[in-house]
């Protein structure tokens, strides 16, 4: 830690970050090529559709998560927000509400849940790790309170077909549009606007950011709201994809999202990271799992790959740094 504090002036650190971004994108491309060449059905259009649908929730939630982690905080409640949004959707559908009202309400619910996190973290000043572990349990519990352990299934086929469908006769799934548009918005905000500069500034040093005229509390509050809205949206899309609203939808997804973001080169201490790397991290994680699954490696054994990648993503650059220094 102390060594890191004295060293950011070195140009080497910046290079390292760029290196890691290039490295993770290169690794991702390499994995995609190897998978397409060695796994029979990996390169097919149909599998591409499944791959994108599998990636969808992680890819969406990773966008605001990147910003939250760059400010030095964390949001572990995202998967529970997704689950509560899904349960709420099922509940409203059972109450005969039209789907056109339900979807905005689910996004609004996400915003409220995010605002609760933001309130505890920024207004009360509590550690975000503890707060969002608390709301992880709270929101998931409320999801079960709202919907019980049953499922609601009969959503209108216009919507479910759109989510699972493709653009015209191409193999490109419709939901890819959602991912691309949102990734572009978040990418521009993070890397090309004053808001994005403020996010990095707060992560690098909150006190200094405050002296520079940034209000860290307000910024973080709205980032949590954004995280909630996107998680709510992910809950809606998850529900429509499987045409099943359940309280346990997306359970455990928070760890995969955090893994993908860290794999993408974002520092857990805040202040460092870039969105292209994160997207590569999401694709790497998703395609690796997809390819291994097609090769009949059991789902659970895939955990080993996720875990090793996660540790390696931080350990690798650290070791490389140390070797270079000596």
């Amino acid at each position: 830690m102390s060594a890191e504090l004295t060293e950011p002036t070195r140009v080497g650190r910046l290079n390292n970050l760029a290196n890691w971004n290039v490295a993770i994108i290169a690794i991702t491309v390499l994995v995609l090529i190897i998978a397409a060449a060695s796994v029979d059905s990996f390169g097919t259009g149909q599998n591409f559709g499944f791959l994108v649908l599998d990636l969808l929730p992680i890819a969406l939630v990773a966008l605001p998560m990147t910003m939250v982690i760059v400010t030095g905080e964390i949001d572990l409640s995202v998967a529970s927000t997704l689950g509560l949004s899904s349960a709420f959707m099922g509940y409203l559908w059972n109450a005969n509400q039209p789907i056109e009202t339900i979807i905005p309400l689910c996004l609004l619910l996400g915003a409220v849940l995010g605002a609760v996190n933001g309130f505890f973290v920024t207004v009360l000043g509590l550690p975000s790790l503890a707060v969002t572990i608390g709301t992880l349990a709270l929101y998931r519990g409320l999801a079960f309170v709202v919907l019980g352990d049953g499922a609601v299934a009969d959503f209108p086929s216009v919507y479910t077909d759109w989510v699972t469908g493709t653009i015209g006769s191409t193999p490109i799934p419709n939901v890819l549009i959602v991912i691309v548009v949102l990734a572009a918005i978040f990418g521009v905000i993070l890397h090309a606007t004053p808001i994005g500069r403020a996010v990095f500034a707060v992560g690098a040093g909150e006190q200094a950011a405050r002296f520079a005229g940034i209000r860290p509390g307000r910024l973080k509050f709205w980032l949590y709201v954004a995280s909630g809205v996107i998680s709510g949206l992910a809950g809606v899309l998850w529900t429509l994809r499987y045409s099943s609203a359940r309280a346990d939808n997306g359970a455990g997804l928070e760890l995969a999202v955090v893994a993908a973001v860290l794999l993408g080169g974002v520092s857990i201490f805040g202040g460092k990271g870039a969105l292209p790397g994160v997207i590569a991290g999401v694709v790497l994680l998703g395609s690796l799992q997809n390819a291994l699954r097609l090769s009949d490696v059991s789902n659970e054994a895939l955990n080993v790959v996720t875990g090793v990648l996660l540790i390696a993503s931080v350990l690798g650059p650290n070791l490389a740094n140390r070797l270079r220094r000596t």
Partner: protein
Amino acid sequence: MTAVELTAPKRSSLDFVLRARELGIIIALALLVAVTVISNPRFLSGQSVRDILLNTAILAVLAVGQAVVVITRNIDLSVGSVLGLSAFTVGTLLQNNPGLPVVLALLIGAAVGGVCGVLNGVLVRYGKVPALVVTLGTLYVVRGVTYFWAGGSQINADELPPGFLSFGNASLLGVPMLVLIALVALVVTAVVLRNYRVGRELYAMGSSPQAAQLAGIPTGRRTVGAFLVSGALAGVAGVLFAARFGTIDAAAGTGMELNVVAAVVVGGVAVFGGSGTVWGAALGALLLTTIGSALAVLEINQFWQQAIVGGLILLAIGADRLVAVRVAAGLKKRGSHVG
């Protein structure tokens, strides 16, 4: 004269705060039990209390280990997976060697967990990877290894030696063996943390890692040691799990890390390290387990349990924050008075 005046009140107010923190959990626990007993007196019957204590034992052993790690300003999210690996290892060994003594089973479980803990500690300390990342990674890796090994197989109670299963139900002087083991782990850890140099060094590291290093504390060894304790206790908890439930598959203990962290946080161990006791963590485990049982007795929908646990975590850290602000204000006032 002045020296006495200065030290005496400081000590007592600090003591009071610490005691008040655990007092809060005890009062909450007492209220919960009182309300539940009024609605159903059988809640305090022998069997019901026994079940609560047995379930608490496993969670408390994990919480004690977790508290040691959290006090050093780290976190160990891999404990649920380590519990699963240890339970499956010991279960398989017992299946093949029915004569294996229980003590040896406990030691093997602790060793399996200890190895995982040392791996965590080394990666955190010498790999300079944050504990959250390392243990999130090993959460996946250890669980994956268990699945690789176990596949879909399951060890059933009738495949385990009767001697081992009876250990799960045995009592000594009316106290279940599992509870006794948890108490031993709790008391030993509490005494070491409170009265021994090693224990105080862990608190020092949590309060300020840099200051601890400057003060000559071997922070590397201590960090690895804290993770070793957490891992070994998670391993022991795995053996207790096997003895209590008899049925073990690769999913044993999945998701338990969140309950453990919840127990520790509710018990007043600050997530930023340097404060809290294992007593608090164990009380937190007892409170969470009691809530689960009380809901069933009160005929409140079980689905509320998780939501209540979440609310309780928020309440606990909110209350801690309030106390910390009060204490800080008090210290500042006293400081300015003396100055």
